[in-house]
């Protein structure tokens, strides 16, 4: 035990004397947390809509004003569909809505009229979202027209026209559909994963690279003492990063903390054991910091992209979903969102907790076994 304390003391001294380590520890988290949530925002705004109003009637203007009032569209006008099409061709517009002549007349006389929508669908999801927005605005407009212009028909005729079922939405756990609320907890996970994974792996390899490990290996120190002494400082730093990140998340993004913070930390402490174990395992396979960096990077990219942080795991192909069973980041992203945003308790995350614990024991066991004091 005393031996371990001597190693921990030495590690902390070295970490705080390392000019490149300090910025990584204290500046990187701030920057990541402040920039990434804004960049990783999937909300589609500022859609460039061109309206070709060939009716120029009261009703068509009323429809126009609905689009202008929407926060999602930047509206411009052309006189002909050809012009609007040219705008899309030159990537000056994302979609155009054609209001045909006699739109008002038909709507009032025949009680039905059609609109034409052309969308640039290179970015499929953006096209889909734009279409949904347009439809929702047209639906609102429909209701308004019915209420305003056909009051005498109410209520029986209204039923005949077919009053659409009105769906009202209530978004649980993230009522304002705020992307920061969704992203920040996930980014916190990335942050402590990178700190713990990269730094712990590189730290041990550094001793190999500069040769100091030889002087350690010639002492009667036990493998487990060395490994614990090496990893514990990064375990503490990881938890500290998480705390800093949470405070920042609260201050900057006003992230709700619905669930128990201590539960998040309890999970994080087991999760960090696993990540440190991965770093350690990588370091036993590498002889230089460069090798260790590349190996860690390889796993990090895969783990991050397949973590469900940016894209939902449910929409991945089956084989990819199977791979995520072995992805620690995916588990923690899931858990931190559940606990922080939904208020899930111990019972809900218990199973994941023990899974991660089992992984941690397996990976660390493998790493210690593979770490050799003697060649």
């Amino acid at each position, binding site marked *: 035990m005393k031996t371990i304390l001597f190693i921990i003391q030495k590690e902390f001294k070295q970490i705080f004397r390392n000019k490149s380590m300090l910025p990584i520890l204290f500046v990187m988290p701030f920057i990541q947390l402040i920039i990434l949530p804004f960049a990783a925002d999937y909300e589609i705004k500022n859609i460039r809509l061109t309206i070709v109003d060939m009716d120029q009637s009261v009703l068509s203007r009323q429809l126009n004003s609905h689009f202008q009032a929407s926060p999602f569209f930047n509206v411009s006008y052309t006189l002909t569909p050809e012009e609007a099409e040219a705008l899309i061709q030159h990537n000056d517009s994302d979609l155009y809505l054609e209001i045909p002549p006699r739109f008002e007349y038909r709507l009032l006389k025949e009680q039905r009229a059609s609109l034409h929508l052309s969308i640039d669908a290179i970015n499929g999801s953006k096209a889909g979202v734009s279409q949904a927005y347009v439809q929702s605005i047209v639906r609102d407009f429909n209701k308004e027209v019915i209420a305003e212009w056909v009051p005498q028909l109410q209520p029986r005729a209204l039923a005949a026209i077919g009053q659409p079922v009105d769906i009202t939405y209530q978004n649980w756990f993230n009522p304002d559909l705020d992307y920061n609320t969704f992203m920040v907890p996930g980014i916190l996970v990335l942050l402590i994963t990178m700190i713990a994974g990269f730094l712990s792996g590189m730290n041990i390899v550094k001793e190999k690279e500069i040769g100091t*490990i030889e002087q350690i290996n010639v002492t009667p120190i036990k493998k487990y003492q060395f490994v614990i002494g090496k990893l514990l400082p990064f375990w503490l730093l990881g938890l500290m990063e998480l705390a800093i990140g949470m405070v920042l998340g609260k201050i900057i993004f006003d992230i709700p903390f619905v669930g128990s913070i201590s539960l998040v930390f309890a999970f994080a402490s087991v999760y960090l054991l696993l990540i440190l174990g991965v770093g350690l395992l990588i370091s036993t396979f590498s002889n230089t910091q460069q090798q260790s960096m590349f190996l860690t990077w390889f796993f990090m990219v895969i783990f991050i992209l397949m973590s469900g942080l940016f894209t939902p795991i449910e929409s991945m192909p089956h084989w990819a979903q199977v791979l995520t069973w072995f992805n620690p980041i995916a588990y923690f992203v899931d858990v931190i969102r559940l606990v922080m945003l939904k208020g899930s308790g111990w019972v809900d995350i218990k199973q994941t907790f023990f899974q991660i614990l089992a992984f941690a024991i397996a990976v660390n066991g493998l790493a210690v076994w593979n770490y050799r004091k003697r060649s």
Partner: protein
Amino acid sequence: MNQAIWAESLTKKFGSFTAVDAISFEVGQGEIFGFLGANGAGKTTAMRMLSGLSFPTSGKARVAGFDVYKQPDQIKRHIGYMSQKFSLYEDLTVQENIRFFGGIYGLSLKEIRTKTAQLLEELDLEWIAKTQVRSLPLGWKQKLAFSVSQVHTPSIVFLDEPTGGVDPITRRQFWEMIYRAADRGVTVFVTTHYMDEAEYCDRISIMVDGQIAAMGTPEELKRDNNVPSINELFVQLARHTSSK
């Protein structure tokens, strides 16, 4: 038993290459044993096997009375080791290095304090005890490394080219330190390239291509081979194999 080190047919192979080829020798307690050889002759490999850093491929060896296969931890408790490459922590101070290695050898805090004071005084480094090791000149670093290798008062120290790249004055001071250690009864197992240093040893062995080509006191070796200096003998032995 007054044998500090005993080896019989100790062999290390890396694939088909035999780095150390069945060497047998003994070193008595308190002896200064010089281990000479050209680069790549197998000196470091032999030393690494004896200090528990490397598994022998075959052969037997006991260090401080302990078996190299079965009792590496016991051996490590009783030996000090100074590698060819400087391997103290450059970003720790002189004092912190002594403290750290004292700590992992299991010294108590009180012992560490006493030992630190004693080593700093011997080295005459009290005035820069709180300086990071990176800023010390090489010679001082080597002397510090030698002292740190003995922080746990081992009975045997292994020194791998301790004076490589060090100026003549510091080399002399270094050898004075070796003598002082030997006077305290410490066995010193030292590899070197400097033939004048070989003459300071009680006994030497010259390794050529993984084998011990000559062994004995410097005087015996010079007399038996009829050469004026160890340097001459070394060149003869080395040339003999390279022309083979």
